[in-house]
């Protein structure tokens, strides 16, 4: 069976990888057509960002309302924990392959598959974050005449922001990482450089690994920055 991963020992160098990123290289299998280079790098990066952002948004759309509702009502603790545990146990490679086999390839199906990975951490952390808000703060809100929705929006969510963001960041890490194997389901992302070693060569593989790592870190730092912006001044002082 030839479908297996490449087995030749690669001797890629950082220099080769950098050359691959900035200028197209010749390939053994494309019949003279050059691969790599900044244009292809940008195209695949944009694809991976698009796919990841879509999946993260879908995860938020599903997980946030459920987490907020359950956390506010204080019900479904077992459900939230079970979802979080189940989410961690899902093997990414099997999930992508299964979705491709069961519902087909393409951006939409892959977005759903990736959201399956993103929903559990967001839901569980939102639940825990809202649920663990000091009852005294909630009662104080109720005492000054806030509606339930106002309590959620003005008291509980601001206090739960750090915990909620831990979940969102966990989801983003899982989604960006798994978007790397999206080429297996027909969406070309930076992972194509990694998976198709026979096309891109060892320099391409290393370049792909570097680019994917940088992209993941970029997501992490952007979300950390967003979290800082959304965290209330009082909480920031407390944690400092």
């Amino acid at each position, binding site marked *: 069976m030839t479908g297996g991963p490449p087995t030749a020992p690669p001797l890629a160098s950082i220099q080769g990888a950098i050359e691959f990123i900035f200028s197209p290289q010749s390939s053994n299998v494309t019949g003279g057509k050059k691969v790599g280079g900044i244009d292809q790098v940008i195209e695949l990066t944009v694809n991976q960002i698009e796919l990841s952002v879509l999946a993260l948004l879908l995860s938020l759309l599903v997980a946030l309302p459920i987490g907020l509702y359950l956390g506010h009502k204080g019900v479904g603790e077992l459900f939230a924990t079970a979802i979080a545990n189940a989410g961690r*146990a899902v*093997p990414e490679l099997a999930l992508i392959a299964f979705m491709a086999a069961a519902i087909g390839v393409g951006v939409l199906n892959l977005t759903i598959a990736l959201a399956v990975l993103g929903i559990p951490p967001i839901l569980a952390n939102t639940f825990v974050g809202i649920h663990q808000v000091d009852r005294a703060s909630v009662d104080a809100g109720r005492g000054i005449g806030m509606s339930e929705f106002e309590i959620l929006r003005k008291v509980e969510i601001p206090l739960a922001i750090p915990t909620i963001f831990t979940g969102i960041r966990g989801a983003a890490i899982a989604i960006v990482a798994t978007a790397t194997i999206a080429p297996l389901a027909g969406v070309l992302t930076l992972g194509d450089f990694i998976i198709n070693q026979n096309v891109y060569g060892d320099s391409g593989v290393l370049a792909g690994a570097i680019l*994917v790592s940088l992209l993941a870190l970029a997501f992490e730092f952007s979300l950390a920055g967003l979290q800082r912006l959304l965290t209330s001044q009082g909480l920031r002082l407390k944690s400092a």
Partner: protein
Amino acid sequence: MINPGLFAAVGEVGKGFIQERDSSSLPCQATDKLFCFDWAKENIDRYGTPTVQHLELVVFSVLIGFVFAFALALLAHRRRWLRTPLLAVTGVLFTIPSIAFFFLLLPITGRGRDTAIIALAVYTLQIIYRNTMTGLANVPESVKDAARGVGMTDRQILWRVELRLATPEIFAGLQIATVSTVAIATLAVFAGGGGLGKPLYEHINFGTNIILSGGIAILMAIAFGVLLFVTQRLLTPWRRAEAS
């Protein structure tokens, strides 16, 4: 052994034609059915070696990760100024996708199981480190004072009081790390590390194979989760006393 990939290919090309004529005589794996029970029953032994390999990947990487993370946590417990930098470094390492990490390591450690184990171990550092630190931080000051009062040295307090009380958090970290590693270890195939990702990737379009490989991985994750939960309960009898 009949090659299911080949059958899948035949099925795709001439599916309509063959099925129209005599769909009942066609083996299940040549159709696009999602799961073929007979094929699974006949071929389940193919997954033995990959399962054992997978188990080894998980056990070795979590053990190595635990030793390092635990040592780092103890170090940071002693020297407060190390806490934030260590959290940041393990955080960055945690952020880098495992599949990328395999290939960043390739020029240094080459292709194979060792590379996979290193990358997977690195992935567990942050989870175990953070949970151990949380556990140690949650030990009440009064308990430590009491221990000091009965004449315990700092070292005795750490090993006999603080770490014991931190056991639930440490185990929670170990559990999260292990369950995640079982799932992520399916990607070790890209680093030539074997495991359940190998059969999965070899016939990645064959539904029965996907469900079997993925299913075994999920069962393994659940088994580890339960095992660690039970161990934690056995190690912290006072918790059960509190709860009842």
